[in-house]
């Protein structure tokens, strides 16, 4: 990985990933050791879309490293509302901060931003494109709970528009992981991701029914199927119902299955799962802080 920016999980080699995860583990064990590691560093938070976990965990991570953040605030209250281009916005912000974290509704936004500034740009989600820092915390969670050796993972839900899915699938090609993709026909992986997986030598195993593969899985990564992806409410409800995880379904799974979700969740994981050994999604969200601390520590 070029540590001056992180735009796509495609940049990440196994060595890059393991370096960040190892550092994150050290930080998680002894966060006090880095409490002043970046006392004078300032991180710019540019979120053109709503965010809770990603934005707050970057904010927390920077502050726990001794640094601080400046936040553009909502689009409604910024110059973007006046029609300012992204290229202009980031060229202004680079004069204020040591690095930029960018979330934007358009695919390719982080790549474009990185071409206009000299400070590091971290992609915190670009439309239906990539979300590489989510992938780093996902991988951290997988390593902690299931390990990467002979890993069999099922990735389920909205695989077409799910940026966390795209980044995770790319990154997993670095490991000895068997990936299964479970989705309705209309939300299969996009052509570009299938192309990359094929180029990386990974097999793309696709299923429309979770029950066909559930019992083989070590990890089940569930994503939200969004209402707006369907032309009518009935079709959405029917499909969303078919891709819902509950206790009865998980009777077919391995006892040590790790169930993950990038959150926010709506109905796709029944609340009854939350208190079971399967549920790892809140731990996963918490891992965002040490992992982003490790990433910022390596970049700044």
């Amino acid at each position, binding site marked *: 990985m070029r540590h001056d920016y992180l735009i796509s999980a495609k940049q990440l080699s196994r060595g890059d990933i393991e370096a960040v995860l190892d550092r994150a583990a050290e930080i998680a064990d002894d966060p006090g050791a880095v409490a002043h590691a970046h006392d004078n560093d300032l991180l710019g938070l540019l979120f053109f879309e709503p965010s809770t976990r990603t934005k707050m965990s970057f904010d927390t991570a920077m502050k726990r490293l001794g640094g601080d953040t400046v936040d553009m605030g909502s689009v409604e209250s910024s110059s973007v509302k006046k*029609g300012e*281009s*992204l*290229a202009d916005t980031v060229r202004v912000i680079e004069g204020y901060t040591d690095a930029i974290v960018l979330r*934007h*509704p*358009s*695919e*390719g*936004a982080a*790549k*474009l931003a990185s*071409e206009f500034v000299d400070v590091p740009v971290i992609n915190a989600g*670009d*439309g*239906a*494109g990539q979300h590489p820092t989510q992938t780093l915390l996902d991988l951290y969670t997988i390593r902690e709970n299931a390990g990467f050796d002979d890993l069999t993972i099922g990735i389920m839900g909205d695989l077409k528009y799910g940026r966390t899915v795209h980044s995770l699938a790319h990154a997993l090609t670095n490991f000895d992981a068997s990936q299964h993709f479970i989705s309705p026909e209309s939300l299969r992986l996009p*052509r*570009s*991701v299938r*192309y990359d997986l094929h180029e990386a030598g990974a097999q793309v195993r696709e299923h429309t029914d979770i029950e066909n593969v559930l019992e083989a899985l070590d990890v089940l990564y569930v994503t939200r199927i969004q209402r707006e992806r369907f032309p009518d409410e009935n079709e959405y409800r029917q499909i969303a119902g078919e891709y819902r995880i509950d206790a009865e379904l998980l009777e077919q799974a391995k006892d040590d299955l790790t169930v993950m979700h990038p959150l926010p969740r709506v109905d796709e994981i029944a609340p009854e799962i939350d208190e079971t050994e399967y549920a790892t999604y809140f731990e996963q969200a918490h891992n965002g802080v040490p992992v982003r601390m490790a990433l910022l520590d390596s970049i700044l």
Partner: protein
Amino acid sequence: MTDTELRVSKIENGTVIDHIAGGQALNVLAILGIDGSSGEEVSVGMNVPSDRLGRKDIVKVEGRELSQNEVDVLSLIAPAATINIVREFDVVEKHRVSRPESVLGVLSCPNANCITTENEPVESRFDVLDEGVRCAYCDTIIRESLAAHISVA
């Protein structure tokens, strides 16, 4: 030159693009940004008989020698095209088009949610794959109907 080429007029100085797949001549001109507005003399032959292609198109541009970089992008829609540089009615250079690594500003991304479709100061950029092209910003792959995505038309 052959009789077929003569049928669409002989040029004194300039470029003849031959062996264009039948029906693609106007797309070739669009890719090259040639629309006649800057006064070039342009002759176009469409669907003329060809031993090699059955039917082919020919484009002749008087007074302009196209560089290899300019014509390589044509390989995307006219991979069999040959480029003849003409000076004083003689062909002085003849070469084929080769696939470039990327094409800049020629195609527009079909992904309406791609950042290059917004009001940003960037040209589109596509990496050329073995089959098709891929947006360097949003990763969208175009394999079919490349000509439909020409942005300079």
